[in-house]
C-alpha cells in the first residue's frame, strides 16, 4: 500500500493534481486533503447518497469512488455550485422553498437535481421524484425539495432556448 501516484482531474472547474494512493476513496480525499467537506459521509455503502458529487456531470457516490476513477475527469462538489459569490438558481430555490432542515443531505440533493436538469431541463414530476429518490432525507423536507426543483425547471423552460 501507499503506492502514491500523481492524479490530475478538474475539481469545480480548476485543474487539480494530487500525489496520492489512487486506491483511496474520493470522499475522504475531498474531505481531508482538499478540505471540501460539503460532500458528507452518511452510510459508506451507497444507499443514502449524502456523499453525492458529480463526475463528468453525472451523480456518483463519492464514498464508493476510488480516486483512480476520476483521473482526467471533471468532479463537481456543492462548493462549485455558486459562481462568483452568486447562488445557483437551485440553491436559491432551496432557500425560497425551505427545502432543508438539518442540511446534512442538502449538498447531495442540490447536485442530484443539478444533474437531472442538465440532462433533462423540463423533467416531469415523476422524473424529478425518480431522480431525487437516490438521496435519503430523514428530516422530511422531501415535499419542499420537489417543489424547489420543479420551480427551477419551470424557470428554465420559460427561458427561450
Amino acid at each position, binding site marked *: *500500500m*501507499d503506492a502514491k501516484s500523481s492524479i490530475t482531474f478538474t475539481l469545480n472547474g480548476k485543474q487539480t493534481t494530487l500525489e496520492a494512493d489512487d486506491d*483511496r*476513496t474520493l470522499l*475522504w480525499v475531498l*474531505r*481531508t486533503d482538499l*478540505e*471540501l*467537506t*460539503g*460532500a*458528507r*459521509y*452518511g*452510510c*459508506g*455503502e451507497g*444507499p*443514502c447518497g*449524502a456523499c453525492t458529487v458529480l463526475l463528468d456531470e453525472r451523480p456518483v457516490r463519492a464514498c464508493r469512488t476510488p480516486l483512480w476513477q476520476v483521473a482526467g475527469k471533471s468532479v463537481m*462538489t*456543492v*462548493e462549485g*455550485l*455558486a459562481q462568483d459569490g452568486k*447562488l445557483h438558481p437551485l*440553491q436559491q430555490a*432551496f*432557500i425560497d422553498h*425551505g427545502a*432543508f*432542515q*438539518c*442540511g*446534512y*443531505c*442538502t*449538498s447531495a440533493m*442540490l447536485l442530484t437535481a443539478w444533474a437531472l436538469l442538465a440532462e433533462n431541463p423540463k423533467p416531469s414530476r415523476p422524473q424529478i*421524484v*425518480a431522480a*431525487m*429518490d437516490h438521496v*435519503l*432525507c*430523514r*428530516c*422530511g*423536507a*422531501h*415535499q*419542499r*425539495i*420537489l417543489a424547489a426543483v420543479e420551480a427551477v425547471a419551470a424557470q428554465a423552460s420559460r427561458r427561450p432556448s
Partner: protein
Amino acid sequence: MNQPVMPGRREFFLKMGGGIVMILAADAPAFAQQRRPYPEDLNAYLVIARDGRITVFSGKVEMGQGILTSQAQMVAEELDVDLDRIDMVLGDTDRCPWDMGTFGSLTTRMFGPALRAAAAQARLTLLDLAAHKLDVTPDRLQVSNGVISVSGDAARKVSYAELSQGARIAHVVPQKAVLRAAKDFKRMGQSPRRLDAVEKVTGGAKYTADMRLPGMLYARILRPPAHGAKLIEADTRAAEALPGVTVVRESELIAVLHADPEAASKALARVRARWENPPTTKQTPENIFDHILAAKGEPRVIQERGDPGAAKPAKPLSAEYRKGYVAHAPIEPHAALAEMHDGKLTVWASTQTPFPVQEQIAQRLKLDPKQVRVRVPYIGGGFGGKSASEQAIEAAVLAVRTGKPVQVARTREEEFFLDTFDPACVVQIASGLDAQGHISHWDYTVHAAGERGAELLYDVADVRMRSVGRGYYESTAAADSVHPFAIGPWRAPGANMNIFAIESHIDTLAALAGSDPLEFRLQHMRNPRMRRVLQAAASAFGWKAAAAPSRRGFGIACGMDAGTCVAVCAHVSVDVESGEIRVRRLVCAQDMGIVVNPEGAKMQIEGCLTMGLGYALSEELRFAGGRVLDRNFDSYPLPRFRGLPKIESVLIEDDTIAPQGGGEPGIVCTGAVIANAVFDASGARLLQLPMKPERVRAALAALASA
C-alpha cells in the same frame, strides 16, 4: 406548568469598565423542569457589542428544527432590532446558560420565555439608561432597530451600542419587563430567511465531522458483534504494524487511530478479537412482546377516575396494540472531535445534551467540569438519538491519552448498532359502548413505551390508565431490562405508540357505534382546542361524514403533545393483493398557541408526518438477541421521495396561548391516522406497527375468514 416561575429579585452593584456604576436588576424566568434554573442575569443571554451587533447565547442546539432562527426572532422582537444584527452562539458550555438539552419540544415553550424576558429586560434597562442620558422621562422614548430617540425630536438619540459599550448591562430598573403581546409583533410571527440557509446550500455549514485541527487523528473503535458480548482477547499487533497507527487500550475501549480516516479503518480490520457472545435466541422481533408482557414491575396508575372495573358495557371492545423497535437513523452519524490544550479539554460534538455531556466527560476523566468545554456545531438530525453521546466521551478519552486532537465519527453500522432505539412496546385497552352508544369505560395499560401521550382526552367517566416499565428512561444496564440493547427517547417518545393505540381504539368504537369517526370524537371531546383542530383538519381535508369502513380510505386521528393540539386526516389506498398501503394525502391542523415562525412550524409538521410514515409503514429493527441485524439503509427502509403523500398543514391562530411545542406534536398521530384510513378502506384493523404488507395481508385474510 408551562408558565415561567419568577424567582425573587436580586440586585447588586457593578462597577463598569467605562467608569459607569450600574445596578443590575436580575429577573429572568426559571423553570421547575430544569435541573438548574435558567440564569436571572440578562447578560447570560446576550451581549451588545460596540459595533451594535448582538450576540445571543443559548444552550439549545440546531439540528434542523430551525431554532437558530426562531430564537433570534424572539430576541429581535423583544429588543427591537433587526434580525441581521443578531449572531447566535448555540450549545457552547463555556458561553451559554446551562441547559439540560434540546429535546421534548422545549426550546420555544420553556427556554423561549427566559430568552424573551432577558431581551425585554435589556430593552427596558437600556431605555432607562437612555432616559438619563437624554434627560427625558422613559415614556417619551422610542426604539427603532437598536436606536433610542426622543419622540418628536429624533435628533436626540443614543444607540444600544453606545449605552452598553460592549460590556455587561448592569443597571437597576425596578419594574419587570412585560413580554410583547402577539398583536404587536413585528419580528415574531414572521417567516424570515433561515439564518443557516446560505451555509446549508453552499456546503459551508460545518457539522462536527467537518471540523479540522492540525495534527488530528481519526479514531476507529473496536465494537462487539452483539450487545452483551464479552471480550475474551484482542490482538492489535497486526494493526500496530501499519505505519502511522496508534492503538489505545483502556479497559473496554480499544481504539485504532491514524491521520487518515481510511487508514484507521484498514487498521481496525486487522485487529483480531475473540468474543463470548450472548444467545441470539433470547429476544427476537417475534417474542419480544411476550418478554415485555412478562416483565416484572408494578404498574403505576397515571390517571384514574370513577370505577372502570365495574363497567358493564352493552358492547365490550378489548384489543392489544404492538410496535417494534425503531431506529433514529439521522443521516449524520454521531461524531466528536476533542482537543486538550493548556489543561483545557474542548470537545465538539453532535449532541443534543452538551451540558450533561460536559459533566460526563469531566467525571470519566476526573476533571473539573470547568476544564471541559463542549461545543455543538450544526447537527445533521437528532430526533432524540443524540441525547446519548458516548462518542464525545470516547473522543475526549482518546485525545487525553494520545495528546493529539482526535475525531470519533461513527460508521453507519456503528450508528445502527449503538443507537438508543425507540422501544418495542404493548398497549392493552379494555373499553366498550354503553346502551346509548357512548364510551362506557376506559381501562388502559401501556407496557414499555412510557406514558407520554397516554392520557385520555375524551369525556369518559370511568377511566384507569396504568404504565408498566419506565419507557424510554429504562436503563439497559438494569438486570431486569427486557430490551437486548439500549433504548431511549425517539421523537415524541411514547406518544406515537400511545396515540396509535388510543386513536385506533376510539376509531373502532366509532365503527361499533355506527358513527362517523369525526362525529364520534366530537361527541366525546369537550376540550375546545382539540375540537377546533379536529374541525379544522376535517374542513381542510374535505371530510364528509360516513361510518367506517366506507371504502373511501379516509382516516382521522388527534392528540396532544408538548402543549400543542394536533389532528390529522389521511387518504390511503390499500392493494389487497400485495397488502401495500399507499398514503395519498395527509392534512394536519395544529394549535401550538402563538406561532413564532409559521413557515418553520409548517416545516416541522411536514417533517413529522414524513418521518412518521416510517414508523407507521416500514421501519422495524431486525435483531437476534443483542445482535443488531440492520446495519445500513439497504435493509432498514426510511421514507423517501417515491410514494410520498401530498402533505398540507393548517396552523390555528391562537394568540391567547403562549408558544407551545412544535418539533414533535405533528408526528404523534401518523400511525393512528393511517391505521384508521386503512380500516376505512378495507375493514381490516391493523393492531401492530409498522403496517408492513404482510401484516396487512394477514389482517385482510383474518377479516375474510371471520
